[in-house]
């Protein structure tokens, strides 16, 4: 060991402080959900769970939650299909434009969200609008699926790289057709990677706000409901409850994804890191 005992003690202290910096704000905002008062003072004087039932019976919150769940489910399904197809093509075939494809997969999260959002909005309004397309659940799903593909892709391609194509060849040598090979050989190998990727895609879609604002029109997903109500002092207690719910609802799927895929395969970061790493992996 090169580090002196003093250095090690200082490093331990600094690490503890950094972790506190990361977690204290989350704990504080979690506590506000139990604040009895409508005003957001600190310290919280009296605790109560009354706002939970208020939030539960709030029409706007319910509609927003339903819309968020629909959007996340739709986006996850599309991302699962497209992410799997893309990873199969990139890992099992050599073709012209392979690197460009893996680049196109990561671009939606590598570019600032506002660029992706504005691009989709301009296209939906100015190009597809005259054809009768309006902002709806479908456009929200399209936006979410676009940046969710990469998390599925990252998980499945990591798995496909580790499993040899020779198993699939053996399967066809034994008389299985393409579909049977996919169904009985390729798919079972990818099952846990798909589950992890799907959970991450769901979590990513469920709390997305930057792109959603541009593709949702007048509809409100749960994060957009929060965004449009957090400036209203009267709604503050309900916002706090919803915020606690969103924290828990987005962390639970990630926790399970980690358990399933192992911390190593869950891409550390929801945005660029996973993407850039995938692009580099894809280089032959």
């Amino acid at each position, binding site marked *: 060991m090169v580090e002196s005992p003093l250095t090690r003690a200082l490093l331990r202290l600094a690490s503890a402080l950094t*972790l506190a910096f990361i977690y204290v704000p989350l704990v504080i905002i979690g506590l506000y959900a139990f604040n009895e008062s409508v005003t957001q003072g600190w310290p919280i004087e009296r605790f109560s769970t009354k706002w939970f039932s208020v939030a539960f019976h709030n029409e706007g919150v319910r509609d927003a939650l339903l819309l968020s769940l629909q959007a996340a489910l739709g986006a996850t399904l599309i991302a699962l299909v497209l992410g799997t197809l893309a990873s199969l093509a990139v890992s099992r075939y050599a073709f012209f434009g392979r690197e460009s494809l893996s680049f196109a997969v990561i671009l939606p999260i590598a570019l600032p969200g506002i660029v992706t959002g504005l691009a989709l909005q301009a296209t939906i309004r100015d190009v597809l609008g005259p054809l009768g397309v309006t902002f709806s659940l479908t456009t929200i799903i399209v936006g979410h699926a676009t940046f969710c593909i990469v998390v599925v892709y990252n998980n499945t391609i990591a798995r496909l790289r580790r499993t040899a194509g020779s198993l699939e060849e053996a399967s066809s040598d034994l008389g299985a057709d393409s579909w049977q090979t996919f169904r009985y050989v390729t798919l079972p190998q990818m099952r846990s990677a798909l589950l992890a990727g799907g959970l991450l895609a769901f979590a990513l879609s469920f709390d997305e706000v930057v792109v959603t604002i541009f593709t949702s029109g007048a509809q409100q997903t749960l994060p957009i409901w929060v965004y449009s109500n957090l400036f209203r002092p009267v709604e503050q207690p309900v916002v706090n409850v919803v*915020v606690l719910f969103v924290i828990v609802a987005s962390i639970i799927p990630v926790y399970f994804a980690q358990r399933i895929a192992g911390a190593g395969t869950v891409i550390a970061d929801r945005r660029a890191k996973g993407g850039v790493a995938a692009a580099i992996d894809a280089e032959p």
Partner: protein
Amino acid sequence: MTAVSYEQPPPRRSTGRRLSTFLHRHPRARLGLLLAGPVGWLVIGYLGSLFVLLLAAFWDTDPFTSEVVKDFTLDNFATIVETPVYRDVAVRTVTMAALVTLTCAVLAFPIAYYMARVASSRTRGLLVVAVLMPLWASYLVKAYAWRTILSDGGALNWALEPFGLSFDGYSTAGLWLVFTYLWLPYMILPVYAGLERIPSSLLEASADLGGRSVRTFVRVTFPLVFPAVVAGSIFTFSLTLGDYIAPDLITSQQFIGTVIYDSRGTNLPVAAAFTYVPIGIMVLYLVVARRLRAFEAL
């Protein structure tokens, strides 16, 4: 796995089977089927949308109705270059991104070093998860948490009060703090990975040759881990550059993201032209990062 295929029914002579045989014999057709969806969605749908946006920057707007008129013009770019407000906003945003990146790098080092070289493997695993999990907690929620904490009667000023201090949270300094908080894990993880890759023998050799801790760190550790810092900075920099929600929640000052967001409805061509700034800066940043071997550190 292979045992399963023995249990398959004998070959059927159905259309499905014939299609399957055809696909087996024609790998190109198989590839085409695989690619149709992703390419259609991402290349035609997504890249097409980006193209629409980049093209919109060259359109004109009717000065009276502020309707978009599809006449080719470079006026929008001229507006952005010549109007001092746009320049100030761009400079302010880039300065903020640089400051946030620097702060994140400084804060990330101790914990990353502790995780990589001091902690036991069990603690290390726990710490990786502890740093990773908050990344997935909603970004809006975290920005909102800070809006609450930084308010006049909030937790931060409550904590500072006994020391006779106060902090105007809804300010540029407050936003700097919030951005640092939001993107810090994006820096910790690559730096940790970079430090973990350095063989202990190198540091021991430096110590054997008389290098004290500080000297070893400056001359050996830091140069080796620098590409990882650049890798982390890609996220801290790019995420700050394009953000519009945290500035909206914390300050009344304009940043690139807020300007684009505010002008999206009233003047799409100028908003589109302004997106060339963050896109251009990020492309440049990625080129330099590649030179510095940052991609290998990811």
